[in-house]
């Protein structure tokens, strides 16, 4: 059999890399049309570069870099957050830190403020963007994905001469096959009176990717019964998704954390945990009921 290259052969790290000429480029776009044009021209040889916290770690995953990147972090409209009476719009290049701080006083977005404000570590949160978090198919433990799923988020996809808005669930389906030249530009969130919470379980106190995430948003009626519920589960399977059977089971009665967890025990077998170096698959599923309970407790607290 042929020998493989060594553990580092396909890496460009450290000494010497700085002086090597190459055809690679990063185009720092200053406007959205310029970014879209550049992505369109590069086609499959190009990719957007937002916070870079995933792309810059390609060497560790033994993945080659794209020949061309289009940096979108300096485009004013993509780094803006607009909070209206009816909706919140978040530019794709808004960082986790900026998002958490903008949402701090909006209790109905507690789930997203926690997702953005507790993920990874402080310096990563200051770089990593919401658009990057949603667009990275290979990152199963993204905190913002389940949080946005339970907030009924829509995303805006822009390409040369076209702009479309689709639901986040749909976007997650088409994400792996999104054509070159298409860029997630905005996240749009409806505003509603509701209680939300984000229960994440890292393996240490903080600083690592969560083993499992339960994001929850419920609307309660005057009698404190659940009128509508959206619950999303992240990090357990390769792609975050809603837990619709559990949502349905909660509607029509008061939100009781212990009871919600009890129901979750019966429904958890619909998840097939992903096996990974850091955790066995069964563990991710087995902690779900407890995360449901914690999310319910936190939601009632907001």
């Amino acid at each position, binding site marked *: 059999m042929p020998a493989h290259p060594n553990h580092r052969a396909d890496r460009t790290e450290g000494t010497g890399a*700085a002086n090597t000429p190459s055809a690679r480029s990063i185009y*720092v776009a200053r406007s959205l049309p310029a970014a879209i044009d550049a992505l369109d021209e590069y086609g499959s040889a190009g990719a957007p570069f937002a916070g870079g916290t995933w792309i810059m770690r390609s060497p560790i995953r033994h993945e080659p870099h794209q020949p061309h990147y289009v940096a979108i972090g300096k485009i004013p409209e993509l780094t803006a957050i607009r909070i209206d009476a009816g909706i919140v719009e978040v530019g794709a290049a808004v960082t986790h830190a900026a998002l958490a701080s903008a949402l701090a006083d909006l209790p109905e977005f507690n789930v997203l403020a926690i997702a953005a404000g507790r993920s990874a570590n402080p310096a990563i949160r200051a770089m990593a963007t919401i658009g990057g978090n949603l667009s990275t198919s290979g990152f199963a433990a993204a905190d913002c994905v389940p949080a946005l799923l339970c907030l009924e988020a829509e995303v805006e996809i822009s390409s040369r001469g076209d702009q479309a808005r689709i639901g986040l669930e749909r976007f997650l389906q088409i994400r792996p096959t999104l054509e070159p030249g298409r860029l997630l530009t905005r996240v749009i969130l409806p505003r509603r009176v509701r209680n939300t919470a984000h229960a994440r379980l890292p393996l240490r106190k903080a*600083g690592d990717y969560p083993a499992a995430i339960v994001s929850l948003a419920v609307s309660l009626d005057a009698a404190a019964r659940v009128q509508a519920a959206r619950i999303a589960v992240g990090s357990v399977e390769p792609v975050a998704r809603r837990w619709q059977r559990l949502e349905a089971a909660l509607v029509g009665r008061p939100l009781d954390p212990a009871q919600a967890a009890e129901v979750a025990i019966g429904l958890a077998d619909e998840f097939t945990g992903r096996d990974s170096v850091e955790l066995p698959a069964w563990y991710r599923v087995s902690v779900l009921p407890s995360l449901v309970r914690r999310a319910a407790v936190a939601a009632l607290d907001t």
Partner: protein
Amino acid sequence: MVVNLTVNGDRRSSAADPITPLVDILREEFHLTGAKPVCREGFCGACMVLVDGAPTLSCLMPAALAEDCEIRTVEGLAVGGTLTPIQAALEDCDAVQCGMCFPGMVVTLTHLLTVEPGATRDDIRAALTGNICRCTGYERIVEAALLAVAVK
């Protein structure tokens, strides 16, 4: 492509491949070896520098995005040989061991003390989530940060 940037007040330029991490340019072109490339994935914080005032993982920042930025490395913090308050506190508390994590620790804590001058023990520990120390068990570092808060 040439990237122009300001490092510790000096105008510099680099012709590096645009995706080269900033940490490699600082170390290999500008001989500023304070920032340490330890994990190269944003978990250890040893390569932390201030970019336009914000603590930034220089292993995750490509050269191209440093264009026109104001960069301050650990070497540029103590002006005229006087230690900054956090450096002085870390020295006073005998916090340093092997020292490899301290450039990043100093940068992170310098920023924390600026934005949260009344930081508590828990604030400090949370702020250090992305700064790993393998020698000290953190306690002396937290102690020193609290001392610097008190002295201010």
